[in-house]
């Protein structure tokens, strides 16, 4: 997975306007800096405007030789599934052609098995944050993020080992105010570390790099490519998908299941789809009786000090109620 780095995006700022997604800008900045010069290819989709435009930016300015955009529906009707399946077939053929390799059904089935195992293991580890938590929010995020950037089979081995060892853990994390965090993408641990440093525990999340990444499995029966394609449209959706209520439902269920005492919404600047959803999701969480803190953050972490003050005050407030 391509991600950025915290800090300024001076290189990208010359090409991308300051009102563009700060995560996309950070990734593009990394591309301009040469961090991704080793890549043979880059695959993007049109899930949101920023990502569709990222395809243009990378195609025009990065050194990555092969760039592909998978046309992605924003709905999950049967017609959308049919269309998306064709798109995934096209992508498979592109891969085979570009890299002179055949992708067999058997290898796809095997990949599904390995990936599903990874998702199930991540889910098991995720549940360790139920009351009383055995791991911290930072630890979990580190584990989830590492899954995005290493071979899944190796990651599975590490996760299995972790699960064996964690049972006898003596240095249990200190349980603080139990919080849920909601938002789009979280590719670093800084914010969670900050929250947990002021007396809270991040026990549940709604990030595409967190729970939404591994929550649903690929159906292991039938045509493997169809099954892979189907999961993308049917999984707990990101805010770009039309079936938004399912994401809200997921968040509400997490809040209950993990017995959270409050929620922080991290709206990444300038993520339109989340900014539109945020007031409605906030209302749903408030209707459950949860205190909610709404924060907008720049991926560059400019304004970090202000965030810290507000998070501290919020955690103190929720803790005080307790």
């Amino acid at each position: 997975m391509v991600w950025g780095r915290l800090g300024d995006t001076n290189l990208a700022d010359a090409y991308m306007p300051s009102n563009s997604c700060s995560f996309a800008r950070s990734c593009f900045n990394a591309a301009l800096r040469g961090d991704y010069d080793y890549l043979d290819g880059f695959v993007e989709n049109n899930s949101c405007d920023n990502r569709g435009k990222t395809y243009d930016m990378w195609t025009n300015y990065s050194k990555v030789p092969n760039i592909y955009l998978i046309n992605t529906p924003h709905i999950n009707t049967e017609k959308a599934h049919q269309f998306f399946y064709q798109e995934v077939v096209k992508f498979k053929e592109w891969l085979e052609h570009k890299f002179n390799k055949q992708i067999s059904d058997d290898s796809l089935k095997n990949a599904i098995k390995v990936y599903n195992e990874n998702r199930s293991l991540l889910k098991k580890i995720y549940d360790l944050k139920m009351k009383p938590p055995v791991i911290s929010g930072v630890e979990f995020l580190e584990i989830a993020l590492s899954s995005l950037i290493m071979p899944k089979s190796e990651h599975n081995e590490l996760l299995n080992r972790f699960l064996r060892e964690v049972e006898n853990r003596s240095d249990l994390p200190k349980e603080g105010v139990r919080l849920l965090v909601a938002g789009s993408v979280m590719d670093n641990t800084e914010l969670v570390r900050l929250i947990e440093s002021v007396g809270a525990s991040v026990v549940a999340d709604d990030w595409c790099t967190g729970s939404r990444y591994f929550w649903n499995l690929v159906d292991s029966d039938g045509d493997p490519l169809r099954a892979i394609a189907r999961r993308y449209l049917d999984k707990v959706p990101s805010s770009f998908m039309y079936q938004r209520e399912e994401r809200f439902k997921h968040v509400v269920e997490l809040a209950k299941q993990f017995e959270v005492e409050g929620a922080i919404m991290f709206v990444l600047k300038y993520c339109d789809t989340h900014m539109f959803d945020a007031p409605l999701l906030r209302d749903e969480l408030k209707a459950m009786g949860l205190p909610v803190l709404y924060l907008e953050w720049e991926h560059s972490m400019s304004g970090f000090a202000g965030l810290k003050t507000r998070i501290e005050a919020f955690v103190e407030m929720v803790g005080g109620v307790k």
Partner: protein
Amino acid sequence: MTAPERRLKSTSGFYKNYVKKFYEDAHRAKIEKQPVAWVSSTFPVETLQAMDIVPIWPENYASVCAARQVSVELCERAEREGFSRDLCSYSRCVLGSMFGYEKELPEGGLPKPDFLVATTAACDTHTKWFQVASRLFKVPLFILDTPYNIGGGDSSHLDPAHIEYYESQLEELFDFLEKQTGTMLDKYRLSQILALSDWTSRLWTEIQDLRKNVPSPMDARDAFSAVFFMLCIPGSQMAVDFYTQLRDELRQRVKDDVGVVENERYRLVWDNLPLWYNLKIFEYLNSLGAVVVAEVFSHIWTGNLDPSKPFESLARKYLPNLANSTVQRRIDIIHNLIQDFHANGVILPTNWGCRMMSIGETIVREAVRQRLGVPSLIIDVDSSDWRVAPDVQVKERFETFLETLRRPSET
């Protein structure tokens, strides 16, 4: 100010005669129980017209609120409900009008929709904004999922799979519309509407073509008003009548060699949206000898419609819209406009709440400079939220840019 004798007669009183009337008629239709739908940008509005559903374009209403100088107050109203100031000002403005406003809303506000229709073709904003509206009004929303035009081709260079997917959804759309209205689609009526829309489109193209003349007989201010029919009610006799009148007036002007300004020094292409709250800025440009001879916005809503192939034609009309395409399409459109309209500069305004139009402007600027040697100005503004850029600053940027366009003989 444009000299009185240079102002167009057809567009004089346009707002009162057409836009205001449109909203009055819509309110009346609502009272008379005719179905009313809100429709997003880049949606095949002809489908609604064919079902005698009143199509309401909230986007147009936002521009009305901006022109009437109330958009910022309405944006602030939505911001108080938790909608970020970084969101599209169109959407904030209309949401603000829905949340209630202490003063009287322009044109009495928008009629409440019986249902909403939106497409992914324009941008994320439209589908998300309409989702919010759907939830607040408790009325259904139909989403037309438009595949992204990755190839960046025009209507004759589209992926057949995209057309097929689009067409199949139009069938679902009519099922939805039939269910909502309780009436069946009359295919003859659909072909009538498509024929009218096609005619409207041809007339609009003729109007644009007349602007290629040096000096140009029409400026952006008039174009941004007159484009109303292309967007909101293309398949209507009113649109055909108005555009016929406008075309004839422009023909006469060209014949008489009457331009927007007496001494036309700079011919500009304008990308993206205007500053709806300050359309006078175009007159300011005129005062400097500059005329916007082509707006990208005036060149993305046309499309031939063949009534014998209704669904395919609609797909070919709406799929390649530049909002739904990779940057190549935008470059091609601007490239052609510069050449065909003999332009010597391009204005690329960003729009604060709009990722879709703001990202990629540097690619356009470089492509245009490399291919044609024509300079562009990227300027940070917003279509309806004047807090983003003070007028003075905008004017200064224009002046400096025009300086760079001066021919050596003029310096």
